[in-house]
């Protein structure tokens, strides 16, 4: 089982056959010798409600739940709307079956009518009978499925989460395959196929003119671990940085109309080159500066427009104003001349 890790959990027959919810792979050869099938959700039996025409106008006198033990039977009886005193109709019974399915404990359910008695015949969800061997931490969570109800949607979600864990480690092609078989109970085979570990060969910023590449690399999170040359590629984290710290770095250099396109990644084997195209636009400078008499001198016309300096000027003036009011900033953009007029003003407290 080179590169594969197999984990077996057990399964029972009698389930419906809706389409698979997890990709089956040819790698089932990594599982013990069984007939392995895709995971399939449980579906209701057809003709779950009998033809009620022969019963005429009936008022229900008794409601029973069969197929499960107490106290579950009482709970299920409480979950249906059909009660003694309600008329017998197909639509409410269909709603009741949906309610039973929604509770997630039935593997199948149908309705039988005997005179004025309505009987909900339910089959419990099959149990995952056995878990054998899990050799890697990423699959260890599946071990606890032993003895619990068979829930294909949950298993598929667990598989997706395990894939994500591999991908964060750089195994961008990682897949978790889950298949089922019947052998002395319900059996499930979980195979992890990590694929190669992909690292970043280069991180480029085409279109960059004035801002140094080193400055952009310095603000991207991850360091040697991810999103830097030699590290793994985490597209989600890089996207967050694109719209936060990278743009902020450009804004701090007066490039307030700059745009950074989403990352483009080009794979070559186990290497990837990542590009973040940049449109810098002009460098904006401060035009006019206006405000109260105690204007701080930290900003002046002609300075490169840096948000941090505007905030610092605001703070310095606030120290002077104190409790009397709040210092606010108003800006007026002149894109034709790449200028920003800045007005600092005080909103007096009542």
């Amino acid at each position, binding site marked *: 089982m080179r590169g594969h890790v197999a984990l077996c959990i057990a399964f029972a027959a009698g389930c419906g056959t809706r389409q698979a919810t997890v990709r089956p792979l040819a790698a089932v050869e990594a599982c013990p010798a069984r007939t392995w099938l895709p995971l399939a959700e449980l579906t209701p039996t057809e003709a779950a409600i009998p033809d009620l025409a022969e019963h005429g106008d009936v008022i229900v006198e008794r409601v029973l739940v069969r197929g*499960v*033990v107490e*106290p*579950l039977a009482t*709970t*299920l009886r*409480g*979950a249906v709307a059909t009660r003694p005193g309600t008329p017998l109709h197909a639509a409410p019974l269909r709603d009741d079956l949906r309610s039973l399915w*929604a*509770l*997630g*404990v039935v593997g199948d359910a149908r309705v039988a009518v005997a005179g004025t008695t309505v009987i909900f015949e339910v089959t*419990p*969800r099959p*149990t995952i009978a056995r878990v054998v061997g899990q050799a890697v*931490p990423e699959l260890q*969570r599946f*071990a*606890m499925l032993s*003895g*619990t*109800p068979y*829930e294909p*949607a*949950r298993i598929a*979600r667990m598989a997706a*989460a395990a894939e*994500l*864990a591999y991908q*964060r480690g750089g195994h961008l092609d990682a897949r978790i395959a889950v298949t089922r078989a019947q052998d002395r109970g319900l059996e499930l085979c979980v195979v992890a196929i990590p694929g190669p570990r992909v690292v970043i060969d280069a991180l480029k910023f085409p279109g960059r003119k004035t801002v140094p590449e080193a400055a952009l690399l310095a603000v991207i*999170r*991850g*360091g*040697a*671990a*991810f999103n830097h040359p030699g590290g793994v590629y*985490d597209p*989600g*984290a890089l*996207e*967050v*940085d694109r719209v*936060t710290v990278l743009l902020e770095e450009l804004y701090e250099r007066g490039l307030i109309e700059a745009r950074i396109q989403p990352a483009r990644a080009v794979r070559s084997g186990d290497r990837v080159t990542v590009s973040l195209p940049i449109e810098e636009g002009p460098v904006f400078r401060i035009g006019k500066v206006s405000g109260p008499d105690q204007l701080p001198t930290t900003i002046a016309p002609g300075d490169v427009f840096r948000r941090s300096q505007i905030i610092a000027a605001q703070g310095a003036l606030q120290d002077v104003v104190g*409790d009397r009011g*709040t210092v606010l900033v108003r800006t007026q953009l002149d894109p034709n001349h790449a200028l920003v007029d800045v007005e600092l003003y005080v909103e007096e*407290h*009542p």
Partner: protein
Amino acid sequence: MRALAILAALAGCAHEQRLFGEKLPPGCATDGKTAESERCTGWILDRLMIKTHYHAYPDPELAAYVTDLGTHIARAAGDRGQWTFRVLDDPTAQAFVNLGRIVYVNRGAIAAMRDEAELAALLAHEIAHLLAAHERETFAEASRGVTRWGDEHALAVRYARDDEIQADELAVKFVAAAGYDVTAVERMLRALGALAPRSGGTEESRHPAWTERIARVQAMAARLPHGGARNAAALRPHLARLVVGQDPRRAAIAGRSILFGRVGIALDRTPGSASIDDDGNVAISVDAAAIQLRVFPAEVASYFAAHPGDGMIAAQIPAGASTLVVLGAGPGAAAHVQRIAASVRPLRPDERARLRPRLLDLSTPRPLWPAVASIVMVERRSAP
């Protein structure tokens, strides 16, 4: 809340390998490895929470009992790792787990249990969340600033609900493996459901409806042998002295005075209206000013006083190993803060004697969902 915002800011200080004077565990560093980061992040979050927001319930015997019980459950679940269990001085019926293998259970949740098996079920549910790696993906994404499910809110809610169901089902497995009655999880859920009958199952709720949770654990219990222990006698002594509701020893309003029994100080407040929240924090409204009074461990208080927040001012008054921090905002806040700080005095013996918490009344039958609990029924007897 503001404390959590400060929590995020303080976390950045951890790179200095100390947090509030306490050294980080060995090997804790930002090495990018998920398992290591979980442990270290869990430790940091734990220290931040218990220093700035939560308080440990001062009952060492109960704390030891919960630790032994929780460890027993974890071992029965097949886990050999180290766990920490904390009983919090909070009247709400909640429990939660931290990725650093730290389980928190409020005294309010313990007050709703009636035997050791039910308490074991509560702890088993939280242990199950961690062992099933429910928060691992969310944490790993969040630690890189990615909220993968944040944009798909309905999906996130559905996954959160399934996590709760799975934790309930695994809790049944774990308590059975530990030798307890398999119906304990159902009884635990019914007890909590009686306190919050309308929680869960709504469009926005991350918890399923009680009916679904009860049905699921009943179905799970049906798969296992019955006859395990309940052991009410083991829990009863702890319940008998358990405080319920707000503890007046944390903070109490007595006429024009505010009493802080645990730290032994009192103050005569300025005119205005005062209130106390479940965490024992005092809020005073005076004209257009808002004043907060909070007790912190001394090593934390200096940070809050130095960083009171935008437009706020602060004063701090030492009180033994703790510090009372007075925060104020709005017009005239500075004068009110100074006046309050100047009025702090030692708690008088007669004032201390009046600070008697309410204890759990075990003689009253406990309501179980679908019946709704009445808080009055539970909080009846006062301490002698």
